[in-house]
């Protein structure tokens, strides 16, 4: 492979990788705080994409404008799913830790419900949003860079930074971090842990609302697109370390470049084999991830 193709692959990988990282932020946050792996993570992203698509198709809203609707909508969905579906589990096992497998099963149920509601509503057809930005590129050192992807990439960096800042400096952020570190001590300090969980879950989903809208200009939409994004997010989180925000972005970049370069050698579909292989290798060698705390 020549150098030009390789650098093009790396740049593209970085761009899409940043977006993977952004998509994985919510999963990492939720797992870090609640010790719950949200199997429906990708489904929520898919839901956001359909929202953005619907607003474009029916009202002609530009996907970037639809963010104003998708982010709050996904926040509410997340808040509601945690409050209604997952919290009974925490209440049942009040003094104990929630058995992670039960939570996984619950969210797997949510995944089935969300994916198939969308399938029922929109059918299996592939949909896409045609806006000008899809075709715009800027040139850096002679290499074309797709503008929509660049925006997604930058958004991931900005969101990660903003989230870190917010977690570090706001009251709620402090409560979230305290709850993540020690749930019992947090409630003994007067933190309303249920509310922290609801907000955390809502927040994790709200981030997906953003990236759903940022993805639609260059990513076609089908009802079953969620699972692959979900699994990629797990991979990113495992690579970067659970609960680590910079780790999430870094893991995303790593995965993006890895996939992009690997797909230069094999077909794009079988490139996923390498991603899964990487996932297994990382989990077996370093279960806490490359940068993560145990």
């Amino acid at each position, binding site marked *: 492979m020549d150098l030009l193709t390789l650098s093009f692959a790396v740049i593209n990988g970085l761009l899409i990788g940043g977006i993977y990282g952004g998509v994985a932020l919510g999963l990492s946050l939720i797992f870090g705080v609640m010790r719950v792996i949200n199997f429906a993570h990708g489904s929520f992203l898919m839901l956001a994409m359909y929202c953005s698509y619907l607003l474009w198709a029916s009202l002609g809203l530009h996907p970037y404008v639809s963010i104003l609707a998708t982010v709050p909508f996904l926040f509410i969905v997340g808040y509601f799913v945690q409050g209604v579906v997952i919290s009974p589990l925490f209440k049942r096992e009040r003094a104990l830790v929630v058995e992670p497998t039960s939570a*996984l099963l619950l969210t797997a149920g949510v995944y089935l419900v969300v*994916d198939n509601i969308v399938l029922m509503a929109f059918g299996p057809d592939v949909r896409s949003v045609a806006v000008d930005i899809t075709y715009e590129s800027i040139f850096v050192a002679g290499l074309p860079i797709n503008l929509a992807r660049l925006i997604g990439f930058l958004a991931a960096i900005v969101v990660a930074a903003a989230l870190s800042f917010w977690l570090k400096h706001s009251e709620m952020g402090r409560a979230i971090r305290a709850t993540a570190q020690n749930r019992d001590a947090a409630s003994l300090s007067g933190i309303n842990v249920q509310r922290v969980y609801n907000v955390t879950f809502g927040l994790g989903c709200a981030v997906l609302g953003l990236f759903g809208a940022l993805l639609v200009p260059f990513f076609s939409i089908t009802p079953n697109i969620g699972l692959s994004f979900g699994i990629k997010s797990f991979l990113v989180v495992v690579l970067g370390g659970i609960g680590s925000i910079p780790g999430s972005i870094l893991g995303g970049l790593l995965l993006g470049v890895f996939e992009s370069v690997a797909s230069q050698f094999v077909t794009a579909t079988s490139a996923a084999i390498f991603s899964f292989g990487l996932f297994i290798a990382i989990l077996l060698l370093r279960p806490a991830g490359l940068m993560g705390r145990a």
Partner: protein
Amino acid sequence: MRHTLTLLLGGPLLVLALAIPLFVTDSYILHSIAMVLFFAYMASSWNFVCGYVGQLSLGHSAFAGVAGYVTVLLFTQLGVTPWLGMLAGGAFAALLSVPVGYATFRLKGPYFTLTTIAFAEILRIWLENTDDFLGIPLKGAQGLTVPPVGGSSFLAFQFDGKVPYYYIILAMLVGVMAATALMERSRLGFYLKAIRGDRDGAEALGVDPTRYSLTALAISAFLTGLGGAYYAQLFRYINPERNMGIDLSIDMAIMTIVGGQGTILGPTLGALLLHPIGEMVRATIGGSFLGLHLILYGLMLILAVIYFPKGIIVPLQRLLDGRARKSASRKAAAKTDALEGKGQ
């Protein structure tokens, strides 16, 4: 007293199941019932390890798919009868399960689950993208068809009507339940329950968790493989998406969990409840509402995890012998595997 429910429910059900082909002549309906039995079989095979060890594998479809491919290839390439092919496929799946299990059983909870998905997906994607492997024609995503031999042939595992297929899967289901019952009474069964109950405690009593989990996994993979081979033979067709996709794994897991993990009858109960719902929804309004049955599956799963974490077999069991154990029943709901271990 032991296995009261198995006998009380299982006995009449078996008689009913044996008699069904006598009065059900519609081949579509018979086929649908055979599919219920098939899913009951697959869920029971999954339950054999996951239900007893308490780990959630979503990669079992790989064992089904691999064994199906081995069976079909042995038949189409070498003319080996699918009956032998099935055993070979099962053995292959069991062999495959050992390194996979060795790697994954060290991981806990969601990590285990996600790794099993990763293993299965690697295999599926590889198959989808491989037309020819060392001269073996795999034909990628397109899949393989089993050429008809013309008419019924026992040796070729091909029959004109649905009745033989029906009885074969019924026999397999009875077989896997018997195997589960035997396992429960053996050292392996005791050890698996001990590992699930308290891993450290089990280790201190001389149980090497990896060794016994792997043993159970290999048996489970073998059984799952037989089911996968049957599935391929029933449709005379196999492809990576259908025969080893994650949906199949999810079905096995959901049916077992809704029915009751770690029990002999639970997976079958789950299949009896869920599959007909799915079929009916598909048959009546499914045309216009794609995916409705899966929404129902998802809701049932959520409700089961919240209200019947040990499966619907628990309230059933309580209903049946509640009177006999009034005092204990208060506690039974969340705490016990009601089917098992209630004296003899």
